[in-house]
Structure formats: C-alpha cells, structure tokens
C-alpha cells in the first residue's frame, strides 16, 4: 500500500505531461485553422484590388487616344487577371490540402477530451472509495468495522481496476496520437509550400514578361525616379501652375 501512492503520482505526472502536449496541439491546430483562413482571405483581397488598378484605367477616356498607354494598361490588365486566377487556385489548393485536414484532425479532440474527462471521474471515484477504505482501516478492528472494511475493499477493487485500465489505455494511446501529427501534417506542410512556390514563380514569370514588353526595358528605377523629379520641376516652373 505504501508504494501505490508513489506509483499513482508517477502516473499522474506522466498523464499531465502527455495530455498537456495534446492540449497544446489542439490549441495550435485551432489557431492555425483560423490564421490560414485569414491569410487566404487577405490574399484574395489583394488580388482583387490589384485587378482594379488597370480596370479603372481602361474605363478612362485617356486610354482611348493614347496608343502607348492603352497597350501598357491592357497588358497590365491581362497580367492582373491571371494573377487573380492563379491566386484563387492557390487558395483552393490550400483549402483542400491544409485547412480541411486541420479541421479533420481537430475533430478527434472532443472524443479524446471526453475520454480524459471519464478517466478523471474514475479517479475521483477511486479516491473517494480509497479514502473510505483507509478510514475503516484506521478504526478499531471490531466485527462490524471489519465487515464494512471488507465491503469497502470490494467496492474499491473494480473501481481501481477501471481506473488502471483507463490509465493504461490513455497513457499508451495519447503518445501515439501525439506522434501521429508528424505523418499527418508533413504532407500538408509540403503542399502549402509547394502551392506558394508555384504561385510566386508563375507571378514572377508574368511580371517579368510584362517588363520585357514595356516601352523602356532598359531604364532602371533610379533613372525613372530622376526623370520624374525632372518632370515635376518642369511642371512647377510653368506659370499656370503658380507654385508658391
């Protein structure tokens, strides 16, 4: 009887540790699901606003008369629409291979939590009955007391066995559950990375091609910046602008 409490303590410690890891995992999967949803929504908002840029320009009469501007804006329009399409596809891929699996994995936790709760109940029952037994053990060993003690021990035995069975089951299965996450989520991770790489390499190609098409492929950004400054000064010098 002396060793049992120590064993119990060890079991409790292991149990807390394993269950703690799983609780943290549950929290992580839940948060990740929400964050991915937010992320994909933000991605879609971005491509929608990108599409708007050339779209608004095309509806402007400016483009009608200006051939160069028109061809540039049309090319930009095509590029943005493709960006939107690829983005949507990327989001769908992420939905299917990452967000859905996260949800499915998460749906296991309620059952686990229920099992833990039941084990907790069993533990409480055990402790209650154990206390009762100890109470009778400490009393004077009279006839009725001995009878009650025997009865209490009989009551305790199945409860203890139940508890031990639950402990065994959970202590064996919780680590297995925990380690299963690796095999489960690695494919999702790979899929997420791949979706992003594919998307960005396509985008790089699209915008790279677009820069080739532009009027002055040779000009660098610095050159353009300088030219803009020069033009702005020119404008400010005009009398009709009357810059103070």
């Amino acid at each position: 009887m002396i060793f049992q409490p120590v064993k119990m303590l060890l079991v409790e410690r292991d149990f807390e540790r394993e269950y703690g890891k799983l609780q943290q995992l549950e929290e992580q999967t839940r948060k990740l699901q929400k964050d991915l949803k937010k992320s994909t929504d933000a991605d879609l908002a971005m491509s929608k606003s990108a599409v708007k840029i050339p779209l608004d320009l095309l509806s402007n009469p400016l483009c009608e008369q200006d051939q160069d501007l028109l061809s540039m804006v049309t090319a930009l329009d095509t590029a943005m629409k493709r960006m939107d399409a690829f983005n949507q596809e990327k989001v769908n891929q992420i939905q299917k291979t990452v967000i859905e699996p996260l949800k499915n994995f998460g749906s296991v936790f309620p059952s686990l939590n229920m099992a833990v709760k039941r084990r907790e109940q069993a533990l409480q029952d055990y402790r209650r009955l154990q206390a009762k037994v100890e109470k009778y053990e400490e009393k004077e060993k009279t006839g009725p007391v001995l009878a009650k003690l025997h009865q209490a021990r009989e009551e305790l035995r199945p409860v203890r066995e139940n508890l031990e069975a639950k402990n065994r089951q959970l202590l064996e299965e919780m680590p297995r559950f925990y380690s299963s996450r690796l095999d489960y989520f690695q494919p999702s991770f790979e899929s997420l990375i791949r979706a992003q790489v594919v998307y960005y390499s396509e985008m790089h190609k699209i915008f790279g091609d677009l820069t080739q098409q532009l009027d002055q492929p040779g000009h660098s950004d610095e050159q353009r910046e300088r030219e803009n400054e020069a033009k702005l000064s020119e404008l400010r010098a005009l009398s009709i602008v009357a810059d103070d």
Partner: protein
Amino acid sequence: IAQYHIPKKQLKAETQWLIWSFSASFRGKPNLLDMGSLMIKPIQRVMKYPLLLCELRNSTPPSHPDYRALDDAFAAVKDINVNINELKRRKDLVLKYKKNDEDESLKDKLSKLNIHSISKKSKRVTNHLKILTRGESQVKDNTFNREEKLFRALEKTVRLCVKNISLCLQHIQDAMPLALQSVMDLQEISYNKDDEMGYSETLSNALNSCHDFASHLQRLILTPLSALLTLFPGPHKLIQKRYDKLLDCNSYLQRSAGEESDLAKKEYEALNAQLVEELQAFNQAARKILLNCLCSFITLLRDLMLVAQQAYSTLVPVPLSVSSISEIQNQVLEEVQNLNCVKENSATFIERKLSFEKKKPVQILPEMPRQTDIHRSKLLSTYSAEELYQAKRKCNATQEYDINLLEGELVAVIEQKDPLGSTSRWLVDTGNVKGYVYSSFLKPYNPAKMQKVDTENRFCDDDFENIKVDEQIFYAVHAFQARSDHELSLQEYQRVHILRFCDLSGNKEWWLAEAQGQKGYVPANYLGKMTYA
C-alpha cells in the same frame, strides 16, 4: 559685397562676426551696393541693350556692311524683352487669380461685391445659359478644348492610380506576413523541435523584403503621383477664368465693336494662348510621369514575386505527389480514430446508440393491384378530358388514404383538394381505387400526342430534387443537438425546410435542412413529414 538684411539675432555669433568682418573690409570702397541694387542690375542691363543697339543702328548708314547684323541684333534683343514681359505678365495674371480664391474670407468677398462685379457675373451666367441652350455663335478653340479634356482625364487617372495602388499595397502588406506566419506555425506542428530547420531566418528575410517593397513603392510611385496631383488645381482656376472671359467675349460678339469688346477679346485671347501652350506642356509631362510610375510598379512587383518565390523555395522538403496526400492523411486519421480512447468516446458512436433505440417502425403497405386497360377505359368513358391526368412518376403513398401510382398511369381528378383544404393533394380515381396523391406528380393527360418518355421529366425513385416547395417541409420528431458547424440544432416539433436529401458524400441518413435562416445537416430519422404545406 553686400549687407544682409537678416535680423542679426537670428544668426549665430560666429556668422555675425564673419559678416561684419567681410563688410568691414569693403567699407569705404566706392562701388558698394546693397542687395536691392545688386539684384536690379541684370534687369537694367537687359533693358539697356535695345536702346544701345537702336542708337547704334540709327547712326549707321544702311549701306554700311554691319547694318544688317545690327538690325538682327536689335530685333533679337527686343524679342528677349518682349518675352520677359510676357512671362512676367502671365505669372502676374496667375497670381492675381490664384490669390483671389485662397486668401479671401467671407467678409472680403462681400466687400468686393459692387454693382460692377454683380453685373459682370450675371452677364456671364446669362451667356453661359445661352451657350447651353441655344448654341449661339461663339468663340471656339478646338485645340484648347482637346488639351483641356486631356488635362481632366489625366487628373482623374492620376487620382485613381494613387487610390488603387495604395489600397493594393495595403493588402500586400497585410497578406504576406500572415502567409509567412502560417507557414511557420504549420512547420512547428509538422516536425519535431529537435530537427534543425533554421527557418526563422527565412521568415525575417522575407518580412524585410516586404518592407523594402513598401518603401520603394512609396518613393517611386506614390510620392511622385501625389505631388503631381497637387499641381492640378492651379490650372483649374485659370481654365475657369478663361471660360469667364470667353463668356464676356461672346456677349460682345453680337454688339458692335467698341472699347469694351476689344478689351474683353484681348484678355480672353491672352489667357487662351497662355493656357493652350502651357497645358500642352503640362499634359505631356504628366503623362510621362504616369507612364514611368506604371513601369516602376510592374518592376517592383516582379522583384517582390521573385523574393517570395526564393523564400518559400528554401523551405521545400522532399516533394510528394499530390494524390498521395489525402491517402496518407486518411490513413493516419483512421488509425487515430481507431484508438480505443477515441472510438469509445466519439459522438457518432453515442449518436448511433441513441438512434438505434429511437428507430421508427417501417410501415408495410399492402400490395396494391396495378391499373389495367379495363380501368383505363372505364376512366376514359366516365370522366371528361379536362379531368384526366397522368402520373409523371411513381407516387408512393405516405399517409392515410394515399394511393400508389406507377408512372404513366391514368387518373381522373375528383377533387382538387384534400379533406383539410390543402390544394396540393388531390382526390383521384384510378378506375380501381380512389385516394389522394400530390398534385405535382400529375400532368394533364393528352392522348393525342404520343407521350414519349421525356428524360428530363423522368425521376428515379429517390430523386426528390424537383418536388414542389410544399413537400419539403418536415418537422423534427425529436430534438437534436448539433455537434459541429455542419449540423443544425433542432427543437422538438420544429419545422424545417429540406434542401437536400443526402449529405455531400451521398449518405441518405443525413439531410441538409434549413430553419430560421440557418443551414445544417440533421439525421433523417429524426424528421417527420408535414402533412400540410
């Protein structure tokens, strides 16, 4: 050299001393000038030359070889002066009109109101209306109109660009960090901590690139475009003023030429000429700036995409083929779900236990004899053509007094309602038995046409999709508690509207229901059919 009029107390002591020592060294020199005199020197010089050359020319006989050169020089120098005057006049004109609107308070405006200004303004309004309504003879300048249109279009374009590009930038700045963070978080649960991944570096690099993109975009695109935008209002005012002068001019067109009309015409033409010339320059420069900014935008995006691609590429482990992802995951999930602790405590398990206890007894209907030719001819003879209908599909009896019909069977409608008044259930006669069927299952019988089996009207037994709205109302026999977002909670006897009679994987035990604006799946055996719509 010169004395500065800067208040001495603004200068540092050192500078003050320097200035004093400089000016001290010059004191006493004869040609000491102050700043004002110094600055006027070039102007005096410019004005001196025409006079000088004129004198020189006049005193040269025309036969002298230099005469020609002198003449040309004189003309050129005169031109310079005229140009300077013109430029000055234009600047003054602009300043005059610019000051008008900016510095005025209501009091100032009121004080300017006098008979003259009121009559001027009212004349203009009249003329404006005349132009709008009658299209009278008026002074027109097509070049100006064209440039003005271009000017306005450019302004609108630049404004839209600033707005849209800013918004896009905002979204990019929101989206990219979120995506990167999610990747990091997913990596954390996919791998053990001890596996050396070192990805935090990638994360911070990518985030830095995102910041760089934002600052480049700001500098190369948004700042110039915004600056350009501030330059548009100035010319606007002048354009408006020109229009006023135009109206004045028009009002004099009809009347005889006089001093007033000449003045109006001169003012208008001066302003018009100035605007035409300078608007062209403005438009060209503005267009160039716009094009440059668009180019920069595209190159910035290209570079950003490359950085992102590279960042994510460093994270790629051994690639898997797409198809095996779901296989692997399903297998793992199955293993997990087979764990005893999970299996015994799963909600479906408990649910199934309950549903077994609550299963309703299956009604076994007596075998009904099918319609024969005798029955049909009896119907045809007894009832008129309008009363005859044909079953579009197989009808299963579900309530008391209902009858079964096979597809194509003939019935005569006795009553187009049922005992409780619902018009969707009709009392019919098959020639054999009488009973109720749902009216949507019947179509008018047309013996003249060969009733071919229309594949569109063909329904299979379990395909409920085209039933009328009436037949989709069910009620909950027992209360049901939803356990996830996909399911719908029901109260006992709550009415629901069924949207689909199976779930996404074809399982007919779960139906998609709608109630009080919410949708979700409910167990089929919890539902009973409503007898009345």
